[in-house]
């Protein structure tokens, strides 16, 4: 998301970078670009104006910084303001001292409430909670059924009965208490904000259930209307936060800024895909660096921590560094990657990935991953350990066995060979990898305490061949190679 916005800012960055100092005209021109970019990104007009005013104030109040170029200074101001509007720091979800913690979801029709309810339940389950779903959307045909199916998918019970929404909520809460569940998520009927009857229904629901959190579910593709929606809901419900959905669309997602700007409540969660795992805490500062095209490594690390099998990864990494990486390892890693979500989603979070790569990754489907798997599966154990023994006739056999063609097999082997070479160089070479890993490790360690958007140099080294070029903002001082900063790869038995 925010792709177009980042591109625009990137362009802006380069055109300003060349100039010596920032005149009023320059500033007007730069802010004009920012304005157009924000509007194209569907940020609401009033929010855009307020945003620009604030950036202007920020810039005029500051003495011209000697170490930054004028372009960098504009981008810095835009970035800082962006972080401020997006929320500054993430909202921490805390639990009621007397369970259950009640969460009410509200939003327009089609924003994705029901799916979000299930994803949220899965998220709480992951946190070691016992969530319970209450389907109080009796309006849309089969909404209850949809939640039941999704609930079954994530292994969370769903309560509903064909009475009235208020009755369902009341009974659902009682049932949750009886079962000893500590988080209750209530899905409500989608509504058009102007619909007074339905607004009253959700208000009644809030009154009966006294939710600890009321989240507005908002769609990232929403246009200027996001502001009106958010305000209408906020006025009648007293929202505690916003959940943004469909962040995997190529929409620029300005609605996030708009809603945040007008409601003044943090965006708490973000839904980024169709899979139940495509759901994460929203991190405003990370999002801001994403806007500026800096990738989102911290989210990636967190997701990896949550879904991947650390031992498998560590083993693979060790072998990769020593140059003994086999196709079997590759297969194991591949399975880990697939757990993490869609390739496109992962690529979005990696810094230095070009737009072309991203769209290529988007077009990769499970079927093609399956093909790669099939090719490797069609090899003998020995072939997987020593790909060099694979000659012409073996290739033909593998192609036949996997239902692909020799070209595909050749390609895979060639790429694999090259990657292995690269990895080996990194492992034994000038210490590029260990340094990178040291940075990654310390970054991961810092992740809990401080959600900084710094770029781990390890990624830059790694992605040499796929760099998008100039990063708009230089992070930190030049990278000094210190011996003490190294981290040895995990020992293998």
């Amino acid at each position, binding site marked *: 998301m925010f792709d177009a916005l980042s591109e625009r800012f990137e362009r802006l960055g380069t055109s300003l970078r060349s100039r010596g100092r920032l005149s009023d005209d320059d500033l007007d021109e730069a802010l004009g670009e920012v304005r157009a970019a924000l509007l194209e990104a569907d940020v609401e007009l009033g929010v855009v104006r307020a945003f620009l005013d604030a950036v202007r104030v920020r810039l005029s109040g500051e003495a011209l910084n000697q170490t930054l170029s004028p372009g960098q200074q504009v981008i810095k101001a835009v970035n800082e303001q962006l972080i401020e509007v997006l929320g500054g720091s993430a909202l921490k979800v805390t639990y009621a001292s007397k369970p259950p913690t009640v969460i009410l979801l509200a939003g327009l029709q089609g924003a994705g409430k029901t799916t979000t309810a299930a994803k949220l339940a899965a998220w709480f389950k992951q946190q070691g909670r016992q969530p319970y779903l209450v389907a109080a959307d009796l309006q849309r045909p089969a909404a209850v059924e949809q939640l039941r199916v999704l609930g079954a998918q994530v292994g969370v019970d769903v309560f509903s009965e064909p009475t009235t929404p208020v009755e369902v909520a009341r009974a659902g809460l009682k049932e949750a208490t009886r079962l000893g569940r500590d988080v209750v998520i209530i899905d409500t009927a989608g509504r058009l904000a102007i619909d007074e009857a339905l607004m009253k229904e959700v208000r009644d629901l809030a009154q009966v259930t006294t939710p600890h959190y009321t989240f507005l579910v908002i769609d990232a593709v929403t246009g200027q209307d996001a502001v009106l929606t958010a305000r209408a809901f906020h006025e009648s419900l007293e929202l505690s936060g916003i959940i943004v959905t469909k962040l*995997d669309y190529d929409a620029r997602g300005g609605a996030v800024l708009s809603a945040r700007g007008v409601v003044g409540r943090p965006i708490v969660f973000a839904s980024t895909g169709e899979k139940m795992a495509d759901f994460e805490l929203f991190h405003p500062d990370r999002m801001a660096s994403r806007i500026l095209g800096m990738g989102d490594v911290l989210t990636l690390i967190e997701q990896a921590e949550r879904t991947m099998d650390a031992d498998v990864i560590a083993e693979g*990494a060790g072998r990769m560094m020593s140059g003994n990486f086999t196709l079997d390892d590759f297969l194991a890693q591949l399975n880990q990657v697939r757990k993490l979500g869609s390739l496109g989603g*992962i690529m979005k979070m990696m810094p230095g990935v070009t737009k072309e790569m991203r769209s290529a990754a988007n077009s990769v489907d499970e079927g093609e991953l399956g093909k790669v798997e099939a090719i490797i599966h069609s090899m003998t154990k020995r072939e997987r350990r020593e790909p060099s023994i694979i000659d012409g006739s073996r290739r033909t056999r593998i192609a036949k066995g996997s239902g692909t063609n020799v070209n595909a097999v050749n390609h895979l082997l060639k790429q694999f060979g090259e990657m292995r070479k690269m990895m080996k160089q990194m492992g034994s070479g000038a210490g590029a990898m260990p340094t990178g890993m040291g940075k990654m490790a310390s970054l991961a360690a810092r992740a809990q305490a401080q959600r900084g958007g710094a770029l781990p140099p390890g990624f830059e080294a790694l992605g040499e061949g796929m760099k998008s070029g100039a990063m708009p903002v230089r992070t930190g001082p030049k990278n000094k190679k210190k011996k003490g900063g190294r981290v040895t790869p995990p020992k293998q038995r």
Partner: protein
Amino acid sequence: MTIVVILLIVVAALTVVGAATVIVARRRRPRGELTAPPRAAMPSVLVPEVAQRPTLETTPTIGQRLGASRGVFDRVRSMASVGALSDEQLDVVEEVLLRSDVGVTTTTRILEELRADGAPEGVAAAVRAALLASLTSERSVTTTASSGRVPVWLFVGVNGVGKTTTIGKLAQRHVDEGRSVVLAAGDTFRAAAADQLEQWATRSGADIVRANEGADPGSVVHDALGRAKARGADIVLADTAGRRANSTNLLDELSKIRRVADRDPGQVVETFMVLDATTGQNALSQAREFLAAAEVTGIVLTKLDGTARGGIVVAIERELNIPVKFVGIGEGVGDLIAFEPEAFVDSLLDA
């Protein structure tokens, strides 16, 4: 096979990430210590810091400005300018158009036209004329196919725009007009989508063909065509799963569904892209992608009864020449009506 390259890069990158996290985890976790998830025994409200956070400083200003925009078209209307427009007038027009989601590009073009042509009959009339000039496509709908074939209306769109509901309402409309209808529950992805459509079928008296979740949507459409042919039904309305418009494989799947629907005995006579009026500029790229993948012949603009204006269809019609054919103006079954440009433009400007 660029995919392999990407895969390898991702795998490599993740291996590094994974290794780093493992190292960190091992460092952080002294041996023998339990790693229970942290449970903060906090009161039931938000973290105080967050609860006390003031809203965006400028919020009152936004509020005031929004308040002002309500009557902004009145301001346009009252401008009885002749000849060239002043910058202030153009600013007001720009604001109205932008707030209606018409978009920067289209707004700029309309402003250029206004600047060049002036407003001999007042600003409001000029803006109205400029917008109407963008909405001149042919809007008739086809309900018949070549002889011996069954006409198919195919519905595409992203998630949550109201495809299934639209089909339900249109089914009722066809039945009311004396046609026998077969619904194809081609959304085999979203949980209970077929159930939702079945309820509409029951309500309207249409026939429905459905399959299990995860079934091939193409085969559902194929079966629906078979049933329609066998029973001599007049039309098939085919639902599809909501999909991102930026995913090539999902769009390929859609092309395949379209090909199946267009094969004898079926003939796709209309492909509607269902679009939610609250959608912003992304609608344009949605339209572009769906046009390429499924030869969209018309747009159904839903949820116009909300506060959103759906101005993006002006850009879509202007740039891609896809006409809006129906608009959804309420939840009732009869609340899907033919699109009328004049009424639409008036509501657009009345923001």
